[in-house]
């Protein structure tokens, strides 16, 4: 036999979601007119809240934000220029080095078998390419952050 009325929190809990309530609360509300009356006011209140119109911006938010983002084309063009500059500088230094030290290179691979020499060169190229790609990915990520700063 229920003798005490429910606490306000319990009434609210039932009004918000009666299925998540303890059985005791549901049973009390079923039997007690006063608590049921409180539940009804809360349910009416929640209905009123849900009926409020959805606020909306009076302008195209997506369009105005996208217009303010840094242009991808311009960035890509700058990136390409930088990459070609790196490649050109790399080739120049490597070519220059090979030309100036050509006399030393004549004797550099003496005594090494052809297949071994080939493997060394391929490994070196693969490692350098991997390092370059990793560096470029990091660079792109950091530039993205800096561009917005």
């Amino acid at each position, binding site marked *: 036999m229920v003798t005490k009325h429910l606490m*306000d*929190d319990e009434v*609210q809990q039932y009004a918000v*979601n009666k299925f998540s309530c303890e059985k005791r609360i549901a049973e009390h509300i079923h039997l007690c007119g006063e608590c049921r*009356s409180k539940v*009804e*006011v*809360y349910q*009416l*209140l*929640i*209905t*009123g*809240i*849900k*009926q*409020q119109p*959805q*606020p*909306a*911006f*009076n*302008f195209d*938010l*997506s369009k*105005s*934000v*996208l217009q*303010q*983002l840094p242009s*991808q084309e311009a*960035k*890509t063009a700058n990136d390409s220029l930088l990459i070609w500059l790196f490649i050109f500088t790399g080739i120049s230094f490597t070519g220059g080095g090979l030309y100036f030290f050509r006399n030393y290179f004549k004797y550099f691979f003496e005594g090494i078998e052809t297949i071994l020499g080939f493997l060394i060169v391929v490994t070196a190229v693969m490692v350098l390419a991997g390092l370059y790609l990793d560096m470029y990915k990091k660079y792109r*990520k950091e530039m*993205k*952050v800096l561009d*917005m*700063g």
Partner: protein
Amino acid sequence: MQHFRNQPVKWQVNNITGQNTTDRELVERVLGGETNAFGIIIKNTENLVAKIIFEMINNDGDRKDIAQDVYLKAYQKLPGFKFQSKLSTWIGQICHNTCIDHLRKKKMILAENIYEPEAESANELLDMMNTARGNFDKPVDTLVIGKNISEIVKKKIEKLPTIYRTLISLYHKEELSYDEIGMITGLPPGTVKSYLFRARRELRNDLLLHYKKEDLW
């Protein structure tokens, strides 16, 4: 205790293409340089951002600036997003913080003390409840009859402190869980729940102070 009302939504419907797209997929596309994917993120989260901004900021011009600022910040911080929450919750958090910063700059926050709504003492609450109960005996001609409940509630909500308004909107209109609201507002889920109880109680008492229960139907 499980605070989630619904299962976490893993898939979001792309408003533009109608396809299902995960948060991760969208973020990766944006980070890959596809700015249109960021447009999809904006469309998917715009309602939540509008709800927060409209509850916290009164001025229309400020609302526009803040909404844009929120998404520019989100774009800037996107490489650091760790997928520890839904993308919408993360953007909601940025939005709430941006609104708080704005209010602090305008020194509007101290006046209202939005993080510490004054706790009613037991006696004050009892008085309010008694007054409210007494209204059941008021003559009908002193009360507004037949008024749309939505209009009545709207006026009462406007009188609530900012944090209560925001929580009511996020919980009842956006249907977020206590945990998600906690992430957005920076409040512990228990505090969110307790503030929501207080907010609803204030609304109910305010309603009963002015209207007979029967007139609300």
